[in-house]
């Protein structure tokens, strides 16, 4: 794919910004040993709420979810910033965000315990971030600016 310099610049910047967001969410959870996804899962609403809530009944499952969140967010963040395994990181990011969206769909009729900035109609920041990652998935930049360039050369 041949991208113009300005296209590469802005796509890479978008990738770094989203990576930064993921990395920060991960690091904050690493630094707070008391963090758990319990409250968030219990606050699930919408079609799949029962499924997400049922995940909290088993402490092993809950611990696994906490682990996946903490390290998933951190590694996806690093991958996106560094451009390492970019497409895989992007895909994992889309998957995680989709789970967040499914457990907390945006609708003015749904009220969450977690603070929201007003209410959204279907489209919220999570959905926009999912689609931003989808854009990055179809316009990958890791092999142009990022460690993937080095990795592909070394192969």
């Amino acid at each position, binding site marked *: 794919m041949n991208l113009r310099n300005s296209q590469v610049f802005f796509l890479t910047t978008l990738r770094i910004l989203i990576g930064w967001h993921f*990395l920060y969410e991960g690091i904050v959870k690493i630094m707070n040993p008391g963090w758990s996804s319990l*409250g968030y899962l219990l606050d699930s609403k919408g079609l799949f709420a029962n499924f997400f809530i049922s995940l909290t009944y088993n402490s092993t499952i809950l611990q696994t979810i906490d682990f996946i969140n903490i390290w998933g967010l951190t590694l996806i963040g690093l991958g996106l*910033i560094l451009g390492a395994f970019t497409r895989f990181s992007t895909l994992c990011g889309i998957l995680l965000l989709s789970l967040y969206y499914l457990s907390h769909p945006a609708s003015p009729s749904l009220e969450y*315990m977690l603070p929201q900035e007003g209410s959204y109609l279907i489209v919220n920041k999570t959905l926009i971030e999912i689609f931003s990652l989808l854009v990055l998935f179809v316009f990958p930049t890791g092999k142009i600016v*990022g460690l993937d360039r*080095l990795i592909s050369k070394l192969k």
Partner: protein
Amino acid sequence: MISRRDLIKSLATIPVLGAFAYGVFKTRRVVQNKQYILLNELNLDSAIPELYSDANKDQKIRIGLLGYGIRGRQLMRAAGFAHPLWIDEHINAARENPRDTRYQDFLDQEDLNIEITGICDIFDVHATEAMEAAANESKSGSAVKQDNFPKRYKTYIELIQAPDIDAVIIATPDHWHAPMAIEAAKHGKHVYCEKPMTWTVEKTYELRKVVKENNIVFQLGHQGRQTESYIKAKEAIKKGVLGKINLVEVCTNRNDPNGAWVYPIHEKASPETIDWKQFIGQAPYHEFSLERFFRWRCWWDYSTGLTGDLLTHEYDAINQIMGIGIPESVVASGGIYFYKDGRTVPDVQNTIMEFPDQDLTLLYSASLSSNRNRGKVIMGHDGNMELGQQLVIYADSASTRFKEYIENGVIDPNNPIYSYFPGQKHFDAITSPTEKYFAGRGLLYSYRDGKRVDTTHLHIREWIQSIRLNKQPSCDIDQGFEEAISAHMATKALREGKRVYWDYAKEQIVS
């Protein structure tokens, strides 16, 4: 072949990580610094109450149950015995709504190694149900046939005298608590007694005397003793986080007929199925009345009104946390302002207890026809505390102790300086907006050792273990004495419309 250009473009984004790390480091240091200062200042550790000892658990305790009404059922379930129909109902409820975990929570409840060997209820239907629940050791639904029913006793005296009963749980109307507890103590039977401890002042002294003389293990049914946040609140107050405390406000707010004691009347209830004479006991005689039998809390003849039913829980919580003891004086007033259904006890009540030797006032305010949640608030010169399942402490904007910290921004009086949530692994000296929000809404469950548990179960467990270890539990007869006398002072002040005093030397209520 890797060119110089490849290398630069490959590594171009690494400096972003440097900026990220610097940013995290800087913001973290500010937060950690604040947290460190606060931790040192507050001097609270993050220890979480542990479950009571398991020692001698192989010793089976044989229990007799007195009263299988609304509270009796709850106590039986908390002890591990649910009626098969309750099991059926809650299996179905869980099937229809996976969020309804009451059945699973019941199954997960620890086995206390006890047996219900006798029951007594003066309403035949309740007595049969109690036997069926007591026999349901396997926690099965109605499809499983039970045997091994405990004996039904027609009177509490026969039950107490039975040789195969070590201890009794009393969940009868208020006017029966003390006579039964006294009889049990005289026979050396351990007692778990629902609150309020007594219905008359005189029985309070007598009960304390026989419990001590016979050295039985006595637990009064204030399960709030097991609430994690109260235990943490006690620690915070002991360490002086709130400064000099001058006012405590506790409240009751309910707004439904059930909360106002208008309980359903059983269709099979009649003079044939109810032993009315035994119900009356020492209460003034009244002809048979289904309303009085099922809704006894509405009449002074059997009840202690808002004072005995609900003030006692609030008082005991504060007595547990602050050790306030019996007030020097009490005034109270109230009226029947919503439930004009023939009841004699008020549905709105305000009570003020004075503790001049502690420079403290306790205000209790109750309404049975408004759900406005006012919580428990403990107010001190340096800070105040909101208490429920969770615990949140704010610094006072005019605090002397925190003055410097407020000025240099370490403490913001609008945000909690300390918060504690059941089940939380570590406490939090700087609360995030999310946690503040959770605190405001209250949390869903009570936790112990990271497990969801029912406080009544823990309270019974503590009593059972205390019997095995021959020691007194947390809400023992001395705590019960303070609870009962404080409540009687409030009732007397309310009914006589005058301030009543406690003579500490003579241990007497005087007007």
